[in-house]
């Protein structure tokens, strides 16, 4: 908690949080990152589930999308830390924030499992049921993370 208080009182953090233009740029990168991560992951998951781009090769689609997933993840993480820094003392004790972080890491783990296994699944005559289950869990986790994310500001305001 002492670290959080120290973080939110750093001069550049105070300046960034209080400046509408600077904090809006941080928000823009946060949203852009989220949209890239969730959207690209969802597309690959939907393709595995047989609900998108069935005429296109799964491995090629995944190879095209995954670099943007990782770029999105980079944007989300950096901008997310900057947003956390401004209100660290309020975020730290908020349970819903830690639920969001937990779901976020779980979703990344499932995303990595999908990414590593796509070429293998794609070589099989049909996508295995287990792969579809993993894709479905990944999809649910990312949308669960959005739900947790929209709850965070309301909870922080109540702290």
């Amino acid at each position: 908690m002492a670290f959080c208080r120290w973080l939110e009182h750093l001069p550049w953090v105070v300046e960034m949080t209080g400046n509408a233009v600077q904090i809006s740029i941080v928000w823009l990168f946060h949203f852009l990152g989220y949209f890239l991560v969730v959207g690209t992951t969802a597309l690959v998951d939907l393709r595995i589930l047989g609900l998108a781009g069935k005429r296109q090769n799964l491995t090629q689609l995944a190879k095209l999308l995954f670099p943007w997933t990782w770029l999105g993840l980079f944007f989300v993480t950096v901008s997310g830390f900057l947003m956390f820094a401004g209100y660290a003392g309020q975020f730290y004790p908020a349970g819903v924030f830690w639920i969001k972080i937990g779901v976020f890491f779980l979703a990344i783990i499932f995303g990595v499992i999908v990414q590593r296994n796509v070429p293998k699944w794609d070589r099989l005559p049909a996508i295995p049921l287990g792969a579809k289950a993993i894709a479905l869990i990944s999809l649910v986790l990312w949308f669960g993370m959005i739900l947790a994310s929209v709850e965070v500001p309301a909870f922080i305001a109540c702290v």
Partner: protein
Amino acid sequence: MLTSIAHWLQNLPLILWLGSSDHAYPFVQLTHFSGLSLWISTCLILDIRLLGFGKKLMTPAKLLDAIFVWNWVGLAIAVTGGFTLFCIAAGGYIANPAFQVKIYMLLPVALIWHIIVQRKTRGWGQTEETPTAAKLAGGIELILWLCVMTGGIWIPNY
């Protein structure tokens, strides 16, 4: 006229319930952001491909074929959630300059540009290499969507 429509929307029983419910309101936000994730990411991915990234993996025409349905499904979901969020605080939104710039100016321009780019992609995107016009069109669309997002982010500042 617009004010009275906003007032009427805001006071519909379903909207009043959604606005006051701790459980329902986050699901409206989830709807909006889930749709936006699909919509924005599929728009940007095609723009990025038109700019020439990932040319060895898939032609823009094939990529468009893979994302087309979910691109528009994403917009439909985003609009459903967005319109519901608008209804909950319609009176405030219609008077908000950032909302006005986003909805009346940036969003229609970006949407029309997107439709033009999508229609042209079938012609431009048959080969690995995209023509200069395609690169320019993709770059402009990418900037337009970033402007729309900035308009949305700026709304709470008023």
